[in-house]
């Protein structure tokens, strides 16, 4: 069995930052493995550890800089990695879920996995749509926001985490794309041995041409036209001063509100 896990490097914004055109200046960004993907990798690795012959392959659409992050996934137990990128993709600007799904579909065509796990969303652009779009393109079944998974021969029995503390129990025919929610498992830290081994594992880079696509796939009807810091709508009273001073001010407020009396 082969499990393909979609993995993304995401950027988090520093406390202070400046917008530069349609992006945030790179000085203010810190890159890391997408939180939701971490759980997807762990889930795949646990399935591999429990089963006979399971290969876990990660696929990333991202630049060379993402390789440190991809190695993290390899260090946690994925067997090998694929990274799709070239100059044309780099110049395309925003990659919407439809575009990403087409790139991933091309990889699926050659890899022929039995199961695909992806994160519910990416922490930076938060589209939350790539996994289900990919399933639909493949004609596969799917389930979004999965926080419990049991694999059978032909069926995945999943819990989908709905709003308000309710879970939906669903049987999904395989092959399927499942988008994984945080909390489904307890992601491991990469061991030193894992980190060493990750350096030896295959990380294949594929261009659009390598995956059999031409640059038409990058023509997106969705164009990002502005990026800005929203006006704060907040009317919060901010206490100023040392921690002791602000704590004293807040304590006074809480007493006025009848707290701890």
């Amino acid at each position: 069995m082969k499990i393909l896990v979609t993995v993304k490097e995401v950027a988090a914004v520093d406390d202070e930052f400046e917008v530069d055109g349609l992006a945030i200046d790179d000085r203010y960004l810190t890159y890391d493995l997408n939180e939701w993907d971490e759980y997807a990798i762990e889930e795949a690795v646990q399935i591999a550890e429990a089963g006979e012959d399971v290969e876990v392959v990660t696929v990333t659409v991202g630049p060379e800089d993402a390789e440190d992050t991809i190695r993290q996934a390899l260090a946690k137990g994925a067997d090998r990695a694929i990274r799709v990128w070239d100059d044309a993709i780099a110049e395309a600007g925003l990659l919407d879920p439809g575009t990403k799904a087409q790139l991933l579909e091309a990889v699926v065509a050659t890899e022929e996995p039995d199961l695909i796990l992806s994160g519910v969303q990416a922490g930076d652009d938060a589209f939350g749509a790539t996994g289900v779009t990919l399933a639909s393109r493949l004609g596969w079944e799917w389930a979004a926001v999965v926080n419990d998974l049991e694999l059978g021969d032909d069926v995945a029995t999943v819990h989908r985490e709905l709003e308000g503390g309710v879970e939906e129990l669903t049987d999904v025919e395989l092959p399927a794309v499942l988008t994984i929610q945080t909390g489904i498992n307890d992601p491991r830290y990469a061991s030193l041995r894992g980190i060493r081994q990750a350096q030896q594992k295959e990380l294949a880079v594929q261009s659009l041409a390598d995956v059999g696509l031409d640059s038409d796939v990058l023509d997106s009807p969705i164009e990002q036209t502005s990026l800005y810091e929203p006006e704060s709508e907040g009317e919060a009273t901010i206490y100023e001063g040392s921690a002791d001073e602000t704590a004293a001010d807040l304590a006074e407020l809480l007493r006025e509100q009848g707290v701890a009396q």
Partner: protein
Amino acid sequence: MTVLVVAEHRRGELRDASLELLTAGRQLADATGGELHVAVVSGDVESYADQLNREGVDAIHTVADGEEFNHDVYTQAVEQLFEAVEPTVLLLPNSVNGLDYAPAVAERLDIPLVTDAVDFDYGDGLTVTREMYGSKVETTMDVDAPQAAVTVRPAEWPKAEGTGDATVEAFDAAIDESAVRSTVTGYQEVGGGDIDISDADVLVSVGRGIEEEDNLDIIHDLAEALDATVSASRPIVDNGWLPKDRQVGQSGKVVTPDVYIAIGISGAVQHVAGMKGADTIVAINNDPNAPIFDIADYGIQDDLFDVVPALTEQFS
């Protein structure tokens, strides 16, 4: 232009997101003097149609197939309705179920999809406003296509009110049962501990800023000094540091205490969904740009490891 909105319900109840979608849909239809159509799929569609018949709704289409949400049925029904109604914009909720079928509908219809809209505009074409990087920035997206799908952030638009005089029509969707390859077998409530945080008057709520499990001691100390209950954002619960029923938010509990003290919590939309109804919101966070300050009444922009012990001290 016509806007087609798809309502959401669960276990016999129309969800608030449906009525919010009507408001959002009306805003968009008004921008071009168009019509607002509403679809409701599965379950007691007659009763849902009654509740959806609010001011500003022109037509309601009911699809009777199925009892509860099943994405294979929804995807087919909405695809067929879209082809019959030919809307310019299809609006769906950015709920967990919305995320489970909107991308499939858009892909099948070969129309662009923009998720989690917080605003939109229709000038030369559709422009959607959404957030990125945990709500720290907003971005606008122009959609260059004759038709598009958009999912709408819950609780961003008010619920539609009044009674309408929409036409209600049953739509005969041809559901291909062989393409229904997922089965919803039931529901399960998240296990309850011994404390119901939704009953608490004062909540001391802790987020990822606390960094380590052992550091939770300072939060428990503060809660004890304030005679308050401890709740948390999702990462704390994901890490197993507090039980699931202490989670505040979209997938956790909705709380409405007199005072909610958010400590080291950024204020992600899914967290805010659970606590914005608190009477007084206090935020302690060292990032002055954290979105939690947008909804807080009082704030301290400082290190929680300095402020929290100092605050506890004030009460001992």
